[in-house]
């Protein structure tokens, strides 16, 4: 087991290095002079040249790459052109908000998704099944921004139940979390239902029933644990799509998170910020997948043995 985890960590490191390289090269082929944007109206050529030098943009790309890599290793992602602050500081500021949003959204997605999946599987082909699966398909098919806008309109604007836009309190995160989680809830519900239906066909489910377990007992104690293995894998993958969706949710709800930072960085052509944001987020996802893999190993004794 340890060996397999070690090799996974090794692979993860390779991926992280690859990610860092890809981001760097993607962002060095960019048109437009970022410094000119940053200085906007009043910049003359001399000022632009001076600031380019300060930011190291006049050096050959390999020197820049070296600076970037060694910096990133120390957690130094450079300074934002637009906000004049270390990217690290900005990331650390937005990170908690994105985490809050993602965790809440994941909770929404998993709770709704797994429960709906269970009920649907229970009542296979019944009315509830159809309703839930209808909703889940709607969840998978609705663009995140649409859900976000509708929620904002109904719950916040019309009903005044929750605030419209960002803020620090948990209350401000409820709507964005639902908007973001809705999508994942759909796919989790579908997956939970199908794996649960599959697992419920397994012989050991009969065994558990033959033991005298109630339907609920069978599902919770025997079926769910097995059905959750693929769902867990999916949850790890969902981390990536949650962060993708966070870009939109944060923009719509005005949450000061990493996604919005990325959008701001793009519109401001703020390369260090964009570089830092994407690198940070991606490394986060990679590490998340690593954790999920290890968790999987722990949860499924069959893999534990093979390792």
């Amino acid at each position, binding site marked *: 087991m340890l060996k397999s985890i070690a090799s996974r960590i090794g692979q993860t490191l390779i991926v992280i290095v690859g990610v860092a390289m890809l981001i760097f090269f993607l962002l060095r082929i960019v048109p*437009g002079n970022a410094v*000119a944007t940053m200085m*906007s109206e009043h910049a003359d050529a001399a000022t632009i040249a*001076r600031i380019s030098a300060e930011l190291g943009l006049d050096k050959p790309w390999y020197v820049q790459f070296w600076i970037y890599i060694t910096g990133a290793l120390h957690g130094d992602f450079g300074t934002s052109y637009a906000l004049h602050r270390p990217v690290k*500081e900005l990331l650390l500021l937005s990170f908690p908000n994105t985490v809050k949003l993602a965790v809440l959204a994941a909770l929404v997605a998993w709770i709704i998704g797994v429960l709906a999946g269970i009920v649907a599987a229970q009542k296979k082909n019944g009315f509830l099944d159809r309703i839930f699966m209808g909703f889940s398909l709607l969840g998978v098919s609705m663009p995140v921004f649409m859900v976000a806008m509708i929620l904002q309109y109904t719950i916040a604007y019309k009903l005044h139940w929750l605030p*419209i*836009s960002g803020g620090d309190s948990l209350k401000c995160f409820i709507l964005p979390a639902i908007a973001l989680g809705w999508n994942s809830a759909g796919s989790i519900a579908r997956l939970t239902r199908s794996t649960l239906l599959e697992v419920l066909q397994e012989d050991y489910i009969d065994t558990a029933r033959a033991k005298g377990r109630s339907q609920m007992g069978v599902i919770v104690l025997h079926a769910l644990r097995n059905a959750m293995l693929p769902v867990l894998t999916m949850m790890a993958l969902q981390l990536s799509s949650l962060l993708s969706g966070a870009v939109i949710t944060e923009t719509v*709800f005005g949450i000061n998170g990493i996604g919005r930072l990325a959008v701001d960085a793009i519109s401001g052509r703020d390369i260090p910020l964009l570089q830092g944001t994407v690198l940070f987020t991606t490394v986060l996802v990679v590490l998340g997948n690593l954790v999920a893999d290890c968790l999987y190993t722990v949860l499924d004794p069959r893999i534990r043995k093979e390792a």
Partner: protein
Amino acid sequence: MKKFAVLLLVLAMVFSFAACGGEKDTQVDVEPGLLRVAMLSDMATMDVAQTTDDYFVPMNVFDRLFEVKVVGDGVTDIVPSLVDTYSAADDSVTYNFTLKEGLKFSNGSALTASDVQFTFERLLTAGGVNDDIPLEVLGAAELQAGTADTLAGFVVADDLNFSITLAAPNAGFIAELTSPAISIVDKETFSEGFGMKIEETIGSGPYKVTEWVVNDHYTLEYNENYWGTAPTATKVVVNIVPDPSTQNLMYQNGELDMIDLGELDTSIVESTYKTKYADKIITSRRVGLTYFAMNANDEYLSDINVRKAIQMAVDRDAIVAGIFNNQATVEHGIIPAGVWGYNEDITKIPYDLEAAKQLLTDAGYAEGEVTIEIAMDSTSSSGTQLVIQVIQQNLIAAGINAQIKTYDESSWLALRNSGEMDCFVATWTMDYNDPANIMYTFYGSEAKTKIRSLNYADTEVMARVAAASSIIDDDARRAEYQALEEIIVIEDAAWLPLYENTHLFAIGDRVADFTPHWAGYTNFYAIDMIMK
């Protein structure tokens, strides 16, 4: 099929839910004296030496020697702020100032003449973007080049008295000193973190910054050491809400005490604000103008007939009515309405499509032969983008093959600064109330017309523009500016003025009254916001 029916049902449920919901007022408990506003983006710095946009903190946390006060509808007056008394020599070269007594920064240290001196010198040496005004002072070039250690033209007599000698006469100098660029900073406590760290950004204004959560919000609180009357808004929270429609909702939800309606589409202002919040609207002139630039170096635009045709082909009244619902006024010159020196009687460019076509035909151009490219900054407001599209259609109607090309912001700027851009639409907002601010910036020198891709050819006119600021007699100066304006706009057809926007704000229930910045800036003086 049954599944599909269920889906339809679900959909219907979602939308009926979306449609329902009654209106009700939210009673939010807000502490008295708290002013909640929103801005589209966070400030990059609080240091006025480094920004020409982020003026909110400089305006509210710092003071200037003079301020512009709105004294009536569209009437402004320049009043001393930190300055107690001043006198100008007859030649408009040397100015003597006396500061008010007992001025203090928010940290308690005294504000003296040497702080003013430091402010001027720092703007020159900090490598920032706001050195235009200090550059007029005698010896500024030497200080900036490093050949002098001090600013020769700035003489400190004692703590309260100082004098400034300019390199050339400038009758508009006092007006220039009202610019937020000349915000007086504290020499004693000035440090590395100035502009970025709230505890190191010390001013003498009515507020001090107490919190800055980047990209989220920042908070200003009343500065107990402020020399003037205390503001009724004792605490100001500026939320960063990048999306105007969200701001709109927040205002309607009672989450904002003031909204800048300039960011919203006019139709929303029309349908929602002019009906539901009609008595909450505060109107201000956005002193400045939107113009259509024509590059005289362009193959076709170098022909004055083409420029004249374009001037006549653009239906500015339709733009003002159609896009802005008349929340703007058509401009005819360079000096915008609301600025000292504005000429109401300037010759007006008519809208005459047929005459424009005729002019082109007479000049020997075939239909569609004249080809120009209008460069559009992809980040420009939707209003500006619409204006560009309407202009394009106007020009096409006149037989000019006008193409819109979209550039990202930095490419757009780079192209414009290179002097190679064909045409574009942009807006200039006045920094201070003097024609020099726009005339000199656009037509003051060859370099200045090039950086705006105008490439105006008449060097004689440009020399006159540069010299106009030193005319001491106000009437003579005004006459000279107006004459130059007539030459550039009408005779040379080098400039197509479009319109001046009206800037609307809506105040919330907690606000009694609000006076916007004289030039209609988005940034405002929080002290001019009177809370209930």
